[in-house]
């Protein structure tokens, strides 16, 4: 079970959305992290065969993504989850099941189970247009699992879910990752932190880091500092270094910074988190020429 991206490129007019990306995914949960416009959604759409790369190929165990055989093992939750407002949740799942080629009887059993899993059983016969954002998102997740996919692509799956639902979703994804490839993108760093076996950091159309949480955090390991200083010193530090967190306190300004050396006398070295890494990569520190 291997999904291979081979020098995949996609360009929109003057912008290169995905730039010669090559990597492979095996069984497990992959978290795709990147700022808006980094190319995550474009990459996922190409992976699902709904957007054609300008060059390069994507294939799963020698099956090209354009083939029906690939779509048969694919589950996809798009970023903008579409639905038919006048369909009930059950109708919607049954329709998508027939699109996925699942026999009617089996489809009904699966739909019932998935509605239960998504805690939507009580509204199975209600029109989707009456659902809240979270309910729609859960329905979207449920539909992506209808065909028990070998490749599951989830674009911003936790958007609109409340913290309790997110925790439940994380647990579900962790379980699913045991025997399939799951790729999910999200802005919620903690979701990736908790679920993903491997994190892919995407920036300007390229995968700039790939590895486990521990591996990719190494980049800023020992470089995260916290200190509380007076206002003037804080301003100077913020100009010089990348602030990860700023908070006004009674005895001064609390700062969490990324830098190679101890930025100030009272500074204490802290363990780096994925959020630190995210901010480090996507706050533009490199472009702004700030020291690290």
């Amino acid at each position, binding site marked *: 079970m291997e999904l291979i991206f081979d020098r995949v490129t996609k360009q929109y007019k003057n912008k290169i959305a995905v730039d010669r990306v090559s990597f492979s995914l095996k069984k497990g949960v992959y978290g795709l992290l990147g700022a808006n416009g980094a190319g995550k959604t474009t990459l996922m*759409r190409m992976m*699902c*065969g*709904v*957007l*054609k790369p300008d060059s390069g190929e994507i294939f799963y165990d020698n099956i090209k993504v354009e083939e*029906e055989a690939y*779509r*048969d093992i*694919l589950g*996809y939750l*798009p970023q*903008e*989850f*579409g*639905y*038919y*407002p*006048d*369909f009930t949740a059950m*109708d919607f799942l049954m*329709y*998508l099941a*027939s*699109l*996925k*080629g699942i026999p*009617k009887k089996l489809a009904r059993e699966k739909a019932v189970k998935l509605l239960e899993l998504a805690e939507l059983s009580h509204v199975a016969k209600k029109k989707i247009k009456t659902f809240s954002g979270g309910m729609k998102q859960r329905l979207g997740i449920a*539909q992506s699992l209808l*065909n028990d996919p070998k490749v599951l692509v989830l674009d911003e799956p936790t958007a609109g879910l409340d913290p309790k639902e997110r925790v439940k979703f994380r647990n579900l994804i962790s379980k699913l990752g045991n025997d399939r490839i799951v790729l999910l993108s999200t802005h919620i760093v903690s979701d990736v932190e908790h679920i993903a076996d491997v994190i892919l950091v995407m920036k300007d159309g390229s995968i700039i880091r790939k590895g486990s949480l521990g591996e990719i955090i190494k980049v800023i390991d020992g470089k995260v500092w916290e200190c509380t200083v007076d206002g003037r010193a804080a301003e100077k530090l913020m100009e010089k270094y990348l602030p990860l967190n700023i908070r006004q306190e009674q005895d001064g300004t609390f700062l969490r910074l990324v830098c190679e050396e101890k930025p100030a006398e009272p500074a204490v070295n802290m363990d780096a988190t994925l959020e630190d890494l995210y901010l480090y990569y996507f706050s533009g520190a490199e472009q702004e020429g700030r020291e690290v």
Partner: protein
Amino acid sequence: MREVFTLAGYEYQKIFKRRSTWIALFLVLLWTLFSVFGVVFGDFYMEGEKVASHYQMAQMEREALEHLEIKELNQKFFQKQKEDLKAFSKEYRGLLFGEKAPGRRAEGWKKYYEYYAPYDNLGTLLAMMDNQIGGIEMEEAGEKDFYQYRDIMLEKVFEGEKLSDGEIDFHRKENEKIKTPYAYGNMIGYDNVFRMITPNCIFLAFAAAIILAPMFAGEYTSNMDALVLSSRFGKNRLIIAKLLTGISFGLFSSLCFLGIFLLEIQTIYGLSGWNLPVQVCVSGIYLTLPITLLELLGIAVGCCTIAICMTAVAVMFCSARMKSPFGVVIVSFAFISAPIFLVSMVADYRILFMIVNSLPTSMMYPAGAASHQLVSVGNHYFYFFQWVPVVYLCLMTGLSWWSYRIFRNHQAR
């Protein structure tokens, strides 16, 4: 194939879950009912005095034509017409126009209509001929005059339409095949069918445009495109199912509404004159086709049905190509209504006329489908209703294939 039918079932569900579908179909139904029943509502007045209802008049004409003594347009028929109208003038004219008329006009009108009803349609036919050639003594016309006038009229029409010598020869030969004297009877039902079938079908075409516009474009606007195109059957069977749904909707809806329409016509006017030649009705007097009213009805229903199916395919093509159902509706409305205005404007330009008259809306006109301009292949001549359906079948296949490709290659952005 079973999957295609299952998916087509869901496409029908999508169609019928939209409120716009029900509103459009309801309006078509309303129009279909009104187009027949609406005409018989109301009363007929003389000098401010109600003499009969339109319904009564239709029934009297039906009754008279269904029980004619002479069932052929022969000399005896013309003779009887003159005698009957003379007898009415002698005995009952006073009830309508004399001193005794006030208060008794209804009775007089009833008598007048009993005498006049069997000859009402014949009077219209003679008036049409007079309109073309002039100088017809309508009250004096006999059997010979009638057929002679018609031949003269046809020659004038051929000349006006700038037909080729080959076409004129063809029409003359066709005309000779029509058995004279014409069988005569109740043609008013068919006459009403041929007059009303066109607006009814145009209304249905508009409704089909509204209903089918979201077929593909609706997937784009509802953001379902990415989801359906990434599913197993999204790039093949689903598209076939959509096309099948659109075409079958065109077919079933036209047959259903035409069925309702014919049922109404049968109720009010009757369709008993099925074996009469088309030339005895107003819509068929110009035609040289040696066919019966039932056969022309078959041609009209067939042409309307395939024209609606063609419109449905054109709408679906626009739907696959454009990104919003609203845009599709606008373009489709223009496509449906343009021939109504263009056909008379381009009448003098042969090629333009052939193109405009072969568009789906033009094919909904029975006179358009059977018009005199023909297409010749070798020594054979073909009417519009013969060659256009063949072209439509080819176009429908081509446009369906094109729509298939557009949706399959659609890039979800």
